């Protein structure tokens, strides 16, 4: 340490005159007993330091640049070399001992201070204001997206079409001529456009089949979700506007077995693989053979889900597809009904009421 003692008056001396008193004393006059006493006093003061600031003060008085031990060190130069070596060693030991004690004490005090700080920072995590509303997709959108995703996974694309249709797309191309008794069963909502009963809100999503077949060469693998309309007065189980999804496959050699397998595969993916399906003969003018399809319920009963069948050759012809080359199947069912079933809704009108108390549940 080449630094020479400063002759400037350290202002701190004014506050601590006792140190001033010791200042003039050299190591030569300080015996081992006195050094021990100094260490002991420092140790006692360190132990007594109640916080980190007090500890720092003690360290500064003893170990600091102008502390007692450092001051003593500066006087070593006045000693004979052999004395200097002994005294220096003793002084170093004393310094490291005090430093060690101070370090240990600092750890304890720091830990205590942190503990106190953490305790003071305590928060009641249940004392939280309600978060902003996260925004909710409509239940029907959620169901529709999920259905689309399952069918996309099975190799289908998603087709869409208009909600107001002509009699050609809604009925005639689908093999339901104007006099056909089945027309009455569709409970069609007609639109005031053109000749009476020539324009209507589509009563099923099947017109999308026709539009797709008119515009796309087979093979065709599509699902067509969308809104459909019937003259059903709104009540707990009916809405005049509701959502259906319809599937259409046109490819070579497609038959009823493919239809049954596709439905089984879809139902397994959507409802779970423990759910099985069955087809029962039915009638639709646009499919032949036609069937209703049922899914199994946990109670062992069957629940009717929708209608399906092998596409009528006449429908293919109407859409410019050669029934000798191509065969296909179609199926359809209600999207809203799936949502109703899934959440056991007791009133389907909630789907169009737009009550936030309903919308925010899902």
């Amino acid at each position, binding site marked *: 340490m080449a630094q020479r003692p400063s002759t400037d008056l350290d202002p701190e001396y004014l506050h601590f005159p006792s140190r001033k008193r010791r200042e003039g004393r050299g190591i030569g006059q300080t015996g081992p007993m006195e050094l021990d006493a100094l260490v002991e006093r420092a140790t006692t003061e360190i132990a007594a330091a109640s916080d980190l600031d007090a500890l720092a003060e003690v360290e500064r008085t003893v170990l600091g640049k102008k502390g007692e031990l450092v001051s003593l060190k500066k006087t070593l130069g006045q000693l004979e070399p052999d004395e200097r070596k002994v005294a220096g060693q003793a002084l170093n030991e004393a310094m490291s001992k005090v430093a060690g004690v101070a370090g240990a004490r600092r750890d304890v005090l720091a830990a205590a201070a942190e503990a106190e700080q953490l305790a003071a920072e305590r928060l009641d995590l249940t004392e939280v204001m309600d978060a*902003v509303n996260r*925004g*909710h997709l*409509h239940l*029907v*959108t959620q169901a529709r*997206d999920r259905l*689309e995703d399952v*069918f*996309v*996974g*099975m*190799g*289908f*694309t998603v087709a869409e079409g*208009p*909600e*107001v249709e002509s009699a*050609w797309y809604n009925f005639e191309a689908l093999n339901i*001529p104007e*006099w056909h*008794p089945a027309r*009455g*069963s569709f409970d069609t*909502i007609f*639109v*005031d*456009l*053109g000749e009476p009963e020539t*324009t209507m*809100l589509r009563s099923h999503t099947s017109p999308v089949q026709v539009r797709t077949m008119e515009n796309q060469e087979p*093979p065709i693998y599509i699902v067509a979700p969308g809104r459909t309309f019937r003259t*059903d007065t*709104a009540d707990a189980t009916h809405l*005049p*506007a509701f959502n259906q999804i319809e599937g259409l*496959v046109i*490819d070579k050699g497609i*038959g*009823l*077995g*493919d239809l*049954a*397998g596709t439905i089984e*595969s879809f139902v397994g993916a959507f409802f779970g693989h423990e759910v099985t399906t069955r*087809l*029962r*003969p*039915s*009638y639709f003018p646009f499919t*032949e*053979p036609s*069937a209703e399809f049922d899914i199994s319920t946990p109670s062992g009963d069957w629940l009717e889900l929708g209608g399906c069948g*092998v596409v*009528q*050759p006449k429908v293919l012809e109407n859409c410019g597809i050669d029934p000798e080359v191509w065969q296909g199947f179609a199926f359809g069912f209600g999207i809203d009904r799936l949502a109703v079933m899934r959440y056991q809704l007791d009133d389907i009108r909630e*789907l169009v009421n*737009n*009550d936030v108390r309903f*919308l925010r549940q899902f």
Partner: protein
Amino acid sequence: MKVLLSWLQEFAPGIDGDPIELGETLSALGLAVEEMTITGQGLDGIVLAKVLDLSPHPDADKIQVVQVDSGDGQPLQVCCGAFNMRVGDLIPFATVGTTMPNGMEIGVRKMRGLASNGMCCSAEEIGLGDDSNGIMLLTDSADESLVGQPITTALGMETDVLYDLEVNANRPDALSVAGVARDLAAALGVPFSFPKAHVERSGEPVETTATVTVHDPSLCGRFAARVLRNVTVGESPRWMQNRLIALGMRPINSVVDTSNYVMLELGQPNHVFDLDTLPDGVLNVRRARDGETLITLDEAERQLIAGDGGISNSADELVSLAGVMGGLSTEVTEQTANVLLEMAWWDPPSISRTVKRLNLPSEASTRFRRGCDWGENIDRAMDRFCELMADMGATIAPGQIDVSGDVPDVSAQRARVRKINSILGTDMTAQDMSNRLTAIGFGVTVVEDDLSISVPTFRWDVVSSHSAEFEANIAEEVGRMYGFERIEKTVPKGEQAGHLSQYQQDRRLVRQVLVGSGCDETQPMPFLAPGDLAKVGLAEDAISLANPLDASESVLRTSLLPGQLKSIAYNQSHRTPSPRFFELGTVFLAPKENDRGEMLPDEHEYLCVALAGEDATAAVAVVNVLANALALPNVQVRNSASLPGMHPTRSGEVVIAGRARGVVGEVAPSVLRSFDVDGRVAWLQLDLTEILNGPHGKRSYRRVSKFPSSDMDLAFVVPDDTGADRVRNTISKAGGDLLVDLSLVDTYRGPGVVEGSRSLAFRLRFQANDRTLTDEEITSTREAIIAAVAKQNSGTLR
């Protein structure tokens, strides 16, 4: 169609076994069992009783005091709420201790102080019909000597199984007991046959009594007629009434009941004329002429048009609406003694059109519309009718008038076994298919690998199909008899990958962004009330519905605004003052012609956001978020005072790549008031169809600079009529490539800022990709920006 097991067994005695399993077999054949009931059971304790006395209840007007004899000859007092009984009537009576079919226990009750010792029953209460208006009166149908006997004994009822079947429109044959029995017998592999009717004939033959001419063979494929004399129009036998009631028909009189019975049993509708009301027994089958009228059996005058099928008398006056309803003038009445019985085959489309136009559906026309049997079933039904009437004392005239018109061609058609297997996904042999078809009445010859098939006349649905359609029809019949459940399930593998279109993906993105903005998705119905569009300042020329369920839902929307305001008002009235809604829905704009020359509404998918309780800037913020999410090119909001329904000083058009694509801002206060909405509503409506089909989604990578950036805030005092977006554009242009970030961080009006102006504070970030910017570069860019804003926007640095 309802059928009784005992009635089915008259055609196929082998139909037997567990009623539930039989029901499952019917369902698997496509004759879905909607309900199965065991009849004639659960009526223990219900006896035939006689009304001895009726008197008013002293303390109640809605009930009366009835004294009945329930078998012991002594009067028993009951209180009853029905008033249709007379003294002497025979009624079903539930004695004390009886458990009714619905589970109700009959005990001694006090009704307004008087004891009631049992209950007089309606038909509905004891499962003998649908009539619940009044007590069932059995005075004419039960024997008084049986008073006190169980009702089942008194009415000759037996335990039976009743199936209510859903019969599809392509199964005309299954709208009859015999037709259902044929299918079921085939599925069970038991014999099926028609019992032979025994009819004795006497008197003057039909041919010299009546004349039938078919003037329009396209309307009437066959017209058969017989004459019955000495007919007594009275009560039909109890067993017949019981079956009619079980199948849901009300017994009327012997002739009408027989007519209905034969129709239900064999599927052949028929009509009975009072022969003495037909001059010379002449009937002419022809189409009606425009303007002709006919008073039908229900005493309504029907206006006919050319094309309706009719039957006229010798004076060429219409006496019947062919296949739909008879005329009043030739109706069978209690005075009728001689009748002419008609059984015909009518062209299904002709009948359908008339039924639909006059809204006159009936059991008979339903069968004609689906296509009845024009073959031997008519003769069979004739015989059956005559047999039943003969049992009731009528004399049957010899012979039958039988006139033919155009009937479908039933010559054999070919169906390929390979094609049928392909349609079904099966591997059946020709012989296997042949056996299954033969069992349900088809005539089949196996010719090499194909089938040559004669379709029975009771399957008009199959007869009327040809070539590919015919094969599909045959495949359905083969599949039905084979069992759909036995067909192996396979999954076809298309070669294309499944995917959503770009539009569909973008639509999902839009929804996600809006949900992320804290909005709830709504889906109101697309119908509006007349006036809703006018209330939001839009033209009232929207497309309306021809047959709306409700006048308040009769107009197709051209804007999503009315629906959203209704939803907000609804929620505000249920203590949600500030809902944040969005909707993606179809609007129906002025019609356009499609490729087929049809006029259909121009449908667009609109997106709207409605933020109750927020001001216009909240909606503009949504525009910015969407513009960012979809990478919309050059999005501007142009203030406009003339947007329908919008706040004149707080709204504008959303312009994307130079084209107006929607509106944003606030809904006009007057509009909000007219929909009972409180507070402000920030509103955004965009034409999603145009936007997503237009340019968007183009993004290019910009390398993230590794050099330090320099931030700077600049506040300009700018006149109020200068849009902030214009100032922003000026800064952006003047800042050039070095300006990498620019945002408006504060606006201020008040002391220190000139009246008519406001301060706009922008935060700018400068950065280069290839170097650290020098102070000089930043300073000169800053000065260029300040100068540009001063020059172009009259803005002064604050």
